[in-house]
């Protein structure tokens, strides 16, 4: 056994704030601390930094600064996009989304259902893809909004957003994509995607927690979520978090610069997937080809995810699981269930999410460490023996 290392492989959960981002933010705490809405020079300098940050975010997304609105997080952006779109829907009362969205979208839709809106949750295929024809079949003249995430947080599946947006627009509905997991990992240009609304979050790309943004395409009118002063061109009340907006802008610049390095991350991911699939009775969740470069989600039969995570953590590896036992709801991941993974197998799924910070040695360490952990838990599992025999039997047939 090699020496114990610390390997953070949970970048889809959150990322550390990078040194460069921190340095960009610091002056906002110490010098440029004014309120951007103030009339005096102290306010003006803060306003100036805020607008520079907005212009920078717009450059990173190849859109106009007028289309960028800062929010407090990805969930706020998601809620604003959905609720805001319905407020200006000219009486349309139908939302279409998918069964594998983030809870920020699913729960916002569920609460709108309770308020009398109609919601269709589209099925996805075994790899997590939304098929354009399922959208075509569900959409009608009452549909106000189509909300489909750009890339899934658990299994990394990247959706055909452009095609889906075309279908939404044919019926006069708005197209929203939750791009929280995609931005910084793959190229994301809202105009190219043809979306009306797009959400992103800072802490997934080395900016701090507590900052997000919503892209609202020029000419698209949505209602407010937070009423207040005249901030964000009267679209979002609340004194602007200048430091964090600056941090988000810098983090996004760096992420876009480093996009070519994502090919290296994807190679690491592929090595990790290949190595994990060498463990008997394991399966890849999601698509082999069309997935986020850092995402690896593998299920191990007959063991449970939380105990696997605990043993990984003891060995210095941070990952996450779709198991019910790690959540308060005691229900396994809705994403895994939606792609057809049975309950009993969903409990044993582990997600590793890699980033630029990870190395070949990290992947080697994960692979060395996890095999004995899986063996150890299987030796303790009352269902492993019969499962193993079945696997051997079918291999011999």
């Amino acid at each position, binding site marked *: 056994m090699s020496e114990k290392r610390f390997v953070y492989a949970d970048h889809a959960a959150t990322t550390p704030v990078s040194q460069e981002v921190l340095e960009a933010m610091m002056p906002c705490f110490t010098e440029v601390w004014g309120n951007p809405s103030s009339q005096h020079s102290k306010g003006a300098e803060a306003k100036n930094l805020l607008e520079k940050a907005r212009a920078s975010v717009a450059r990173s997304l190849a859109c106009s600064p007028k289309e960028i609105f800062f929010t407090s997080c990805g969930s706020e952006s998601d809620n604003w996009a959905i609720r805001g779109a319905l407020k200006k829907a000219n009486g349309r009362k139908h939302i279409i989304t998918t069964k594998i969205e983030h809870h920020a979208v699913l729960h916002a839709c569920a609460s709108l259902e309770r308020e009398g809106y109609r919601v269709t949750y589209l099925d996805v295929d075994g790899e997590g893809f939304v098929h354009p024809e399922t959208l075509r079949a569900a959409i009608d003249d009452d549909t106000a909004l189509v909300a489909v995430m750009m890339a899934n947080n658990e299994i990394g599946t990247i959706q055909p957003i452009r095609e889906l947006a075309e279908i939404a627009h044919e019926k006069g509905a708005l197209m929203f994509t939750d791009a929280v997991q995609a931005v910084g990992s793959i190229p994301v240009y809202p105009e190219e995607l043809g979306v009306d609304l797009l959400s992103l979050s800072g802490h997934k790309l080395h900016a701090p927690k507590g900052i997000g943004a919503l892209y609202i395409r020029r000419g698209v009118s949505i209602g407010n979520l937070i009423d207040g002063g005249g901030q964000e061109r009267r679209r979002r009340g609340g004194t602007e978090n200048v430091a964090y907006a600056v941090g988000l802008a810098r983090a996004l610049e760096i992420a876009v610069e480093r996009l070519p390095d994502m090919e290296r991350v994807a190679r690491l991911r592929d090595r990790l997937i290949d190595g994990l699939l060498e463990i008997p009775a394991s399966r890849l969740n999601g698509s082999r080809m069309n997935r986020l470069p850092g995402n690896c989600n593998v299920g191990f039969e007959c063991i449970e995810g*939380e105990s696997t995570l605990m043993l990984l953590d003891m060995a210095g590896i941070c990952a996450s699981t779709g198991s019910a*036992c790690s959540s308060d709801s005691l229900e396994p991941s809705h994403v895994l269930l939606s792609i057809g993974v049975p309950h*009993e197998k969903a409990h044993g799924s582990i997600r590793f999410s890699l980033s630029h910070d990870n190395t070949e040695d990290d992947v080697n360490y994960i692979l060395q460490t996890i095999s004995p952990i899986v063996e150890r838990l299987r*030796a303790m599992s009352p*269902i492993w023996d019969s499962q193993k025999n079945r696997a051997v039997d079918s291999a011999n047939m």
Partner: protein
Amino acid sequence: MQYSEKVMDHFMNPRNVGEIADADGVGCVGNAKCGDIMQIFLKIENDIITDVKFKTFGCGAAIATSSMATELIKGKSIEEALTLTNKAVVEALDGLPPVKVHCSVLAEEAVKSAVADYYRKNGKEVDFDCEVSCDHCASCGRND
């Protein structure tokens, strides 16, 4: 998940893991759909539990509660084993997060179900309740 040191100890170093080939009583509760299954094997001589082993598929708390339950009944009489409550298991582990208390219920039921198996094998009437009433998640009651 915040676990006590005792839970971590029993998870990392579980006591009495394994099977007993010629067990006098075997109990198995839970199901894979819910994410936990506990199996308990008893060796019984003159109404005393002389040996006990377990196998568990489940989370850290499920493994720790199984381990603790086997420790609590080892060397005890059957009557004493039947008085083991899930609360006693939780207390012996210095507490469990509320969402994990059902694991201790499963441990209590695994012990009862193993004793019931022993009773049945020996033609004794099972005069206690050992049915698993697992209502902690929506998975139960759902049929494939």
